[in-house]
């Protein structure tokens, strides 16, 4: 987190706000609800309180503006600059302006008003932009399902540095952003996708392109707003250009890069018995058209052509994948090898000689 230069802050804890005007994109009640929820993000973790007033001058005046609106910071039409806010102080201090030429919504289409308002209020309260890509105060827009939103730890630390902890006896905590080169990094799921590798972790995924040394960290929701965080297993059916993603007893399908509608569906469609509640890991062998699902210390084999589970399964993992323990986090196949991820370690398994031929760090693909 970064505090605004000069550490400006409100001397009072009980602040007021006023919604000066509305956007025609949303009905008024939804605008009010979004903004109220945005203030609650900050009041939940600090001693600050926010009371709405309906006329006169509030500490934080919130309005929708277009183009040059006489504050030396003109908006630029659709996209680009979405909103801005002023640091704590009298007059325009603390005020929030939204670019009316954006398409404001309460969902994932257009720009989510709640999320942008919560970010701008961080400025109104004395925070600047954070370099933590998972922080609310990170400068670029990313959509997060409002009902799944939890203020990240980086932002909590920032606001509590300025105003102290909240009066709430239970110390609020928030999600942290996984470090790409953290030696303790583990993965929820790994899959190939059109020649790239996707590494899933909490609400994020890394994309690794074979020709590029860089990996970049993204929110799952930025690409696929309707996918949940915490994906538990994933595999690519290369032939059909589809990626299957699993969480608990449900699965989603990406066709190319697009989420197929009318999902999630039930994992029991694959033929799992009802006592299987979730999938730990999966990979698909492009040559044989067989997909391997790993659950606890057992694995199933599914025939992608007949779309049915092969007979004689489940089998014990250890019997056919010597050296691979139970409760695999993630798996994928690349070339002749299968890569199994268990905690911070990655096992390179050669099915031709049926043994582990190398053990690496889980994040060895990230060129740390």
């Amino acid at each position: 987190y970064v505090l605004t230069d000069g550490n400006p802050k409100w001397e009072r804890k009980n602040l007021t706000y006023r919604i000066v005007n509305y956007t025609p994109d949303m009905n008024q009640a939804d605008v009010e609800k979004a903004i109220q929820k945005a203030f609650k993000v900050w009041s939940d973790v600090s001693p600050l309180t926010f009371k709405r007033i309906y006329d006169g001058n509030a500490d934080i005046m919130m309005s929708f503006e277009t183009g040059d609106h006489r504050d030396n910071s003109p908006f630029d039409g659709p996209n680009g600059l979405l909103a801005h806010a002023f640091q704590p102080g009298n007059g325009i201090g603390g005020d929030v302006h939204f670019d009316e030429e954006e398409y404001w919504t309460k969902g994932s289409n257009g720009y989510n008003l709640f999320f942008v308002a919560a970010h701008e209020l961080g400025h109104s309260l004395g925070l600047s932009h954070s370099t933590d890509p998972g922080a609310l105060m990170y400068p670029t827009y990313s959509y997060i399902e409002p009902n799944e939103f939890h203020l990240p730890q980086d932002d909590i630390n920032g606001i509590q540095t300025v105003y102290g902890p909240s009066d709430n006896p239970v110390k609020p905590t928030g999600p942290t952003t996984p470090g790409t080169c953290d030696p303790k990094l583990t993965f929820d799921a790994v899959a190939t996708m059109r020649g790239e590798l996707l590494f899933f972790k909490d609400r994020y995924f890394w994309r690794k392109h074979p020709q590029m040394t860089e990996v970049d960290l993204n929110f799952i929701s930025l690409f696929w707003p309707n996918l949940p965080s915490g994906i538990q297993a994933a595999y690519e059916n290369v032939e059909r250009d589809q990626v299957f993603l699993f969480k608990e007893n449900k699965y989603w399908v990406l066709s190319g890069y697009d989420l197929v509608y009318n999902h999630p569906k039930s994992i029991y469609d694959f033929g799992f018995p009802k006592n299987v509640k979730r999938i730990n890991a999966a990979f698909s062998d492009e040559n044989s058209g067989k997909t391997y699902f790993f659950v606890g210390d057992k694995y199933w084999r599914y025939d992608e052509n007949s779309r049915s589970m092969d007979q004689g399964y489940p089998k014990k993992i250890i019997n056919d994948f010597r050296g691979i323990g139970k409760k695999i986090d993630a798996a994928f196949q690349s070339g002749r090898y299968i890569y199994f991820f268990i905690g911070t370690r990655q096992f390179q398994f050669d099915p031709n000689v049926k043994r582990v031929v190398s053990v690496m760090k889980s994040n060895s693909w990230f060129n740390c």
Partner: protein
Amino acid sequence: SSSAFPVAPETEDKVQLVENYLQHFYNLETDKQSRFKNKNIKTVTEKLKEMQAFFGLKVTGKPDVDTLEVMKKPRCGVPDVGQ
């Protein structure tokens, strides 16, 4: 004919995008504000490095693909550095 002239519009756009972005969010001084033009050019590279460091990009000082991609992302209008 030399491909260097005229400057390909796309290159011009890229230069404009980079300069606008750095002026708005990283205090890059505009020509009017900077007294020596070559200082300005040096500053662009430095400011670009500052922006790349901020976003965790590879710090090249050059407007590479990743950097331009970040510059095109919708974002908050408050500068990343300074007031």
